[in-house]
């Protein structure tokens, strides 16, 4: 047996973001332990940590670089994803400060958990080994289990955590089994080696491998909340504290997609015909069930949960397209999605009241005439989610569709566009309440500067990326 880990293959510089962030996370824990009364300090440290992480991510040059026996990769995809993660974590932390104060979440681990979760996401997006992927998935998941249930005395939060935990663990079983089967049929856990192995046509028809692929799809499908593995998402999104929901909808999802993309579009690209159809079915189902589910919702968080399921469907198209446009569009989509989602949840937090109240859509009646800035921001976010120009969501969708069209998945794109037409309906419904109904009750808003800042960042990014997407596209499509 050869040595498992050659010392020269360990490249800590490549691993810098993980290390930096872990250090900061532990620092948060320590500071909290030694009586930081002001949780804002923790948030501040976390933000600094995220900033340092982002900077350290670019320490490795040139890219692509590999570390730990090629099980950790620093490439364009992972760098971009790290940026998405740090941005979304930062936004989540910004959203949390005021929210936690209001909801009485005093736990200092909160920020540490977010940072650890981000570590997991970075690992997930950078891993090129199944073991690493598994670790990443689990780090992310375990943090999220806790985060979802961080409001210990809230029944909904508890229930969300339980559901998420049980189902998450259940799905992990599938993922793991899939990995085991893939490992068994290829003899490798390293994705590069598996990809090489796949060049051999006879290897592609191994039933064990195919079975493993199906199981992997389930595992990843669960993490990205795609139908029929999505059932947890609405409940968890609704029950979890709002900033956590926002965080969950963006960061971990993006990380899962990164892994999804790496495993399927890159590693198993050679046997695409056998999984394309499965992913297409899942994508179509996700779009349909996501949108159909969203139409009837009255709770905005739950509606956004369903909407995020349908978005998972759209993003899957990028995975299916599996070309360079596909990866670029995936990156672009996740970035714009992050800004939009955090913006929208920012508005929700501002309008929410203690105890997760005031989340019914009809509570927003007449918002436009009391708080025009919030109203227009909300409208912009919703329209962007719907994919209407000139907002970022449109460019993102356009990007993904173009990737699919380039590969000839025209039917898939047609289904997707029809679905976005359905999705307009429920996005518009919210706008109807905001703009076209008369105010029914007074709005008690907690217009905290940090939250407002997130909203404004979201608006600025959504519009700016929508109108001048050039630079981001250039970054994404390297």
């Amino acid at each position: 047996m050869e040595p498992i880990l050659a010392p020269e293959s360990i490249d800590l510089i490549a691993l810098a973001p993980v290390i930096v962030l872990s250090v900061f996370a532990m620092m948060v824990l320590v500071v909290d332990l030694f009586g930081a009364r002001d949780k804002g300090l923790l948030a501040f440290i976390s933000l600094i940590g995220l900033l340092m992480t982002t900077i350290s991510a670019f320490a490795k040059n040139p890219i692509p670089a590999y570390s730990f026996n090629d099980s950790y990769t620093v490439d364009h995809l992972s760098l971009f994803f790290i940026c998405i993660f740090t941005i979304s974590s930062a936004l989540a932390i910004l959203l949390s400060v005021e929210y936690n104060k209001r909801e009485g979440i005093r736990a200092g681990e909160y920020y540490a958990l977010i940072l650890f979760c981000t570590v997991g996401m970075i690992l997930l997006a950078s891993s090129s080994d199944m073991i690493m992927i598994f670790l990443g998935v689990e780090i992310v998941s375990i943090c999220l289990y806790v985060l979802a249930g961080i409001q210990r005395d809230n029944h909904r939060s508890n229930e969300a955590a339980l559901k998420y935990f049980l189902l998450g663990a259940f799905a992990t079983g599938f993922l793991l089994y899939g990995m085991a089967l893939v490992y068994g049929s290829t003899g490798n856990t390293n994705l590069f080696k598996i990809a090489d192995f796949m060049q051999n046509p006879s290897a592609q028809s191994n039933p064990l491998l195919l079975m493993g692929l199906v199981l992997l799809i389930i595992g990843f499908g669960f993490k990205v909340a795609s139908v029929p593995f999505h059932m947890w998402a609405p409940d968890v999104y609704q029950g979890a504290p709002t900033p956590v929901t926002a965080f969950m909808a963006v960061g971990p999802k993006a990380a899962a997609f990164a892994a999804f993309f790496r495993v399927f579009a890159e590693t198993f690209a050679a046997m695409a015909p056998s999984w394309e159809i499965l992913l297409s079915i899942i994508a179509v189902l996700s779009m349909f069930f996501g949108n159909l589910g969203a139409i009837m919702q009255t709770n905005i968080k739950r509606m956004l949960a369903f909407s995020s399921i349908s978005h998972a469907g759209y993003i899957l198209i990028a995975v299916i397209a599996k070309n360079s446009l596909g990866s670029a569009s995936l990156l672009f989509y996740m970035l714009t999605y992050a800004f939009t989602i955090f913006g929208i949840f920012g508005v929700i937090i501002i309008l929410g009241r203690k105890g997760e109240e005031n989340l019914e859509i009809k509570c927003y009646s007449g918002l436009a005439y009391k708080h025009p800035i919030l109203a227009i921001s909300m409208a912009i976010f919703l329209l962007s989610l719907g994919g209407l120009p000139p907002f970022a969501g449109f460019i993102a969708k356009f990007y993904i569709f173009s990737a699919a069209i380039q590969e000839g998945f025209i039917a898939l794109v047609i289904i997707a566009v029809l679905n976005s037409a359905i999705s307009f309906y429920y996005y518009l419904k919210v706008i109807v309440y905001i703009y076209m109904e008369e105010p029914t009750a007074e709005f008690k808003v907690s217009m905290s500067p940090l939250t407002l800042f997130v909203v404004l960042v979201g608006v600025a990014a959504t519009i700016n990326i929508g109108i001048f997407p050039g630079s981001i596209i250039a970054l994404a499509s390297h």
Partner: protein
Amino acid sequence: MFLTFVTFLPLAGAAFLIFTPKENAAAIKQTALAVAAADFLLSLFLWTNFDNTTHKMQFELNVPWIEAWGINFHVGLDGISLLLYVMTTFLTMICVIASWDVKKYIREYMIAMLTLSTGMLGVFVALDLFMFYVFWEFQLIPMYIIIGVWGGPRRVYASIKFFLFTAVGSLLMLVAILWIYFHIQETTGVATADILYITEHLSAPLGTQKWLWMAFFLAFAIKVPMFPFHTWLPDAHVEAPTAGSVILAGVLLKMGTYGFLRFNLPFFPQVSYEFVPMVAWLSIIGIIYGALVSMVQIDLKKLVAYSSVSHLGFVMLGIFALNPYGIQGALIQNINHGISTGALFLLVGVIYDRRHTRLIEEFGGLSKVMPKYAVCFMIVALSSIGLPGMNGFVGEFLILLGIFQVNAIWAACATSGIILAACYILWMFQRVMFMEAKNPKNLALQDINIREAFTIVPLIILIFWIGLYPKPFMDTFDTSVTHLVAKVSPDNFGPSPRNRHDDQRGKHARLITPTEMASLHHKLQAPKKF
């Protein structure tokens, strides 16, 4: 640059209004009017400086927008779009005046109106498919808001219906646009969505072209709206506020017909030619159906809305006559419909403001109470039914003349629309304006006031101007239409349509900047695997 300025001026005005305190209604209205009027005057300046001896785009601006995709910010006007452009600024101005008495959220209203204006102008100037699509979808938002916030009792239903109907159609167009984009990239090696370039170089297999054509058709047919995609229109019109209806009828519907002229015909001449019978019959059904249904309406606005279906049927018929008479007729009829139907909506708005009802049975004998109003209404109504000497006739006659060259039976069927038009308009007019004023609520109605006169008189002047001396209008698009007709002429459909443009190849090469070329090369050479 100037064109860009004119196009975005209303948006800038809207942005300015955001920072105006909402209590100061007068200032808001004056600012909005000033912006709209300035925009109109500037667009007139475009018109006077327009060189109508060439079909080429003018006032062009072509700068890279999304370099990675080869998408440019490319604007320009030719004869086909210029008049629609001017009409948009004109109607925006009229609509701002017409909305003077809006009480509810006047600032937001004006912002929406001005934003809408930029959206519509953008559609007409865009020379890049991507950009076109952006504007095409973008203008939905302010219109949706205008209908939904300032509309009638069923405004929410109407606004969502309007939005979804249009969105469904245009989303399929998006797929077609993407397909074309990649096809062009594949066949010519140039990543571009430039409309002019695509017009020159698109050479898809005929079967595919049919699908693409259908995708564009659906988007535009819904917008026009053609039978049987029209049912959003009556709802939207009925619920929209007066100015919304005017813009809807005057400009938004024209975007559909414009789309046919800018995309369906030049992109897919052969397919367009093959689909002529289908479009013609749909248009004819639309003409007759719209007129018949219009006849039995009990709501004034609905009546006018259905009459739009009928009128736009004429326009479509003219376009698909594929000869200069028909297309020029269609273009002038586009303008005419904007003016006449716009004016009709304004006039209906006048009595709606006073009586808060649009039911025909509520009125009667108005010409005794409001004689000036009655005269205006009469003139507009007559223009709408195409009385010779007024604008409607010129367009309708040319359209019929055009389609007569193609098929006399179609012409005969379509011509029957003018009988029905007389029926529904005159019957309505009689019930509203003539007979005894039985309803006591109508006895004390104020005649048209100065502000309302300011909105309607310019339209009436145009009605007669175009009716008696349409030359300045028709000269504007004469050359462009001739060029277009030459393109869709069936003589052109050789086995390989690309060959005939061999000599013109490279003419648009300048559209592709070096950076774009570089990024394209990079993309082509970049390894797929990591």
